[in-house]
C-alpha cells in the first residue's frame, strides 16, 4: 500500500485556493488515487485565513492534514506560511508566494506585520519562494497566480507528471481563460 500524501493550500479568502485544489483533486482521481479534500468556508470568506487540505493514496480515511504531516504546504500569502508551519512534515517543502495581504489589526495600527518571514522560514525548513502574482501579471492576468502556484506544487510533490494537467485545466476553467491558465501552470512548474 502506498503511503498517503498530504498537501495544504493556505491563504486569505478570495485568493483562488478553491479552483487550484479542484483541478488538483480531479487530476489525482483520474490517476487512480483515492482522494479526500477538506475546506472550511463560512466566516472565512470575509477576509479571514483559509485552508484547503488534500490527501491522496490507495485508501484515505481522515480528510484532515494533521500537524507535522504535510508533504508540501503552498502558502498563497507569506504570513499564512508562518501560521501553518507546524503542519509541515519534517523534510517537507514550503512553497511560498512572495505576497502580502495586510490584516485588519495591522491596518488599524494595532499590530505589526512581521518582517522577513521568508528569510526566517528559510532558516527552518525547505522553502521555495517566488512572486507568483508578478509571473501571472506578465502572462496577462494577476488572477492566474493560483495556477502558477499549482504548477509549482505539482513539481514539488513529484510523481504526478503522468497526469494530463492541461486537460484538467480545460475541464475546470472558463474557455477564454484556458490558455492563460495553461501557461500559468507551466510557468509555475518550470520555475
Amino acid at each position, binding site marked *: 500500500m502506498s503511503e498517503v500524501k498530504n498537501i495544504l493550500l493556505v491563504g486569505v479568502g478570495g485568493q483562488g485556493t478553491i479552483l487550484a485544489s479542484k483541478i488538483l483533486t480531479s487530476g489525482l482521481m483520474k490517476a487512480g488515487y483515492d482522494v479526500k479534500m477538506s475546506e472550511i468556508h463560512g466566516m472565512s470568506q470575509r477576509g479571514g485565513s483559509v485552508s484547503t487540505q488534500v490527501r491522496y493514496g490507495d485508501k484515505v480515511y*481522515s480528510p484532515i492534514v494533521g500537524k507535522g504531516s504535510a508533504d508540501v504546504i503552498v502558502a498563497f500569502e507569506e504570513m499564512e506560511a508562518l501560521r501553518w508551519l507546524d503542519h509541515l512534515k519534517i523534510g517537507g517543502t514550503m512553497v511560498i508566494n512572495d505576497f502580502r495581504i495586510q490584516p485588519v489589526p495591522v491596518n488599524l495600527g494595532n499590530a505589526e506585520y512581521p518582517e522577513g518571514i521568508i528569510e526566517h522560514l528559510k532558516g527552518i525548513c525547505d522553502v521555495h519562494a517566488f512572486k507568483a502574482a508578478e509571473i501571472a501579471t506578465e502572462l496577462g492576468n494577476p488572477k492566474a497566480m493560483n495556477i502558477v502556484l499549482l504548477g509549482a506544487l505539482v513539481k514539488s510533490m513529484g510523481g504526478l507528471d503522468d497526469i494530463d494537467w492541461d486537460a484538467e485545466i480545460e475541464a475546470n476553467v472558463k474557455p477564454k481563460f484556458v490558455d492563460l491558465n495553461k501557461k500559468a501552470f507551466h510557468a509555475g512548474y518550470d520555475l
Partner: protein
Amino acid sequence: MKVIMSGNEATARGAYEGGARFASAYPGTPSTEILENMPQYGDSVYSEWAPNEKVATEAAIGASIAGVRSFCAMKHVGMNVAADPIFTFAYTGVTGGFVMVVADDPGQHSSQNEQDNRNTAKSARLLMLEPADSQESKDFMKKAFALSEKFDMPVLFHVTTRTCHSKGIVELGDREEAAVPDYEPKIKKYVTAPANAKVLRATLEDRIAAAKEFSNNCEFNRVEMHDTKIGVITSGVSYQYAREIFEDGASYLKLGLTFPMPDDLIKDFCSKVDKVYIVEEMDPYIEEHVKMLGIDCIGKDVIPKYDELNTDIVRKAFLGVEPDTYKSDMATVVRPPALCAGCPHRGLFYCLSKRKGIMITGDIGCYTLGMAPPLNAVHTTICMGASISQGHGASIALKDAGKDTKVVSVIGDSTFFHTGVNSLMDAVYNSGSNLSIILDNRITGMTGHQQNPGTGFTLMGKEAPEVDIPALCKSIGVKDENIITVNPNNLEETNAALDKLLAKDEPTVLITRWPCVLKKFSQQDLDEFPTLHKTQCVIDQDKCKNCKMCVKTGCPALISTKDNVVVDYTSCNGCTVCRQVCPFDAIEEVTR
C-alpha cells in the same frame, strides 16, 4: 460513474436517487449547499428556500403527509427553530418518507453555539443516520426515505461541518421512483388532539422497538474486526480519525444508525475486545449509552467535550504522542473577518458608531461584523430574529428604570423575514420605543447569496413576488411617518434619518436599501442602483495629511502604513464612505 463530491453535494444527490420529490430549507453554514445543489435535479425534485427552518420543516411534512418523499435541511441551530413541528411529527409518523437533514458545527467554524443534535434525535425520538464521508452521505440519504417509510418514523440525517465540506470520491447510482398514493385523509394519524396523540405516543414505542431490532443487524452499523486488544465504537467523521490513528491495531464498531441504538450489537462487540474506546465529537452520546448497558469504556475522560476532533487530538488522547513539527518564535497576526470593501452595512455602522448613549441590539448575518473594531457598533447577538424583540424588552426596561438610553435594533432582510417580523409586532403591539433598522442588501449575504422572499427570485430561478418591507411594517402598525428608507452609503442622508427617528418615543423603522457588493446583480438591481461598481475612490497624496480618519471606517480596501494610506483598486467598489469622512477633501471618486 465516479465523481468528486462534497458531503453536501452527495446528500443532494442521495435525495435525488432516493426518490425525493420535495425539498425545503433555510440556508445556514454548513448545510447551505445541499439545497443549492437541488435545482440541477429540478425535473424530478421540486426545491425551495423557505423563510425559516420551522416553515421549511412544516412544508416538507405537508409533502410527506400528501404521500411524497420529502426532506428539509438546516444548520444545527435551525433545529431549535424547527423543534415544534418535528417533536410532534415523530408521533404521527410519515406517509411519504421524510428526512430532516441537520448539520452540526463542532468547533463553531461559523456558528453562534455548538450543539450536538444527536441528543435531539433521542429526545424527539427520530431515527438517526450519521454518514462518515461523501459516499455514505449519498448512500445513506438515498436509503433514508425507504427507512422512514418502513418504520413510519421521520429520519434525522446528522452531518457535521467536516462531512459537509469535505470532498471524496462518490460512485453514483440511479434514481428510484416511489409511487405517490392517492390522497386519503388519516385523521387519527395526523390530527394530534390529545385523544389521538396519546395513542400515537404509545405506538411510537412499538415503532422504536421494531427499529431497535433492525439496528442490531443492518447495513448502517458495521463491525470491522482486527486486533482485539482495543475495540473502538464511533460514528460520523470521528470514525475516519480513529481508523487513521489505530489502523488495524484495533477493531471497530462503526455506527451509522444511532437512534435507536443497537444494544445487542454493542454488547456482542464489546464482549470480543479487551478494552472499549469511544471516539465521538461533542457530547458523550454513544458513551453514555454504552455505560448504561453496563459496559466499561473510555471516552470523554480523555477526549474534549467540545470543539472539533481531528487526528492530532485522538492520537494524543489515546496514544499520548504528538508529532514532530517545525517550530518558530515569530508571532503571526490574526485575520478576523471584516465587512467587505463597499459593503453597504459600513455606512450605517459608521453613523451608529459616532452616537453616544445608545444600546445597539444585533442579530445574525454579515452585519454582525459591525461589532468589530474600529466600528464596535453591535452590542448583542443571540439568535436569528432576536434583535428587535431584545431591543423592545430593553427599551421598555430602560424607560421603566428612568434611564434615557435609546435602543436601536439592527437586522438583515433575510433575518427579518426569518423571525424578525413577529418581534416587530411585539414592539408595536406593546408600545415599545426601539428603532428597528432593516439592512436590506437585497440578498441573504452571510451564507453566500441565497434568494429570499424580498429579492424577487426563487431557488429554482423563477421570478417571484417581493415582500414590500415598508408596507409590511405599516400594516403591523408602525406609523407611516416613522418609516424611512435610505441609501446607507450616503452618510448625510443616513444621519438625518437617524436624528429624526431617534427623537421619537414610539416604534420606528429605518430601511437601508443597497445591494451587497458581492451579489450577482439582477436587471432590477442595475435599474434601481445605476451607479453600482461604476466608480472607485482615489487618495490625492498631496492633499492627504495621513490623519487615518478614512481608515477608521474599517474598509479593507484602504491600505494603511506609517507613511500613508492608499486604495487597493482591485477591491474598492466606490461606496465613497471614506470620501465622506475625509476632513481634507483628499479623496476623489473617479470612474472605474
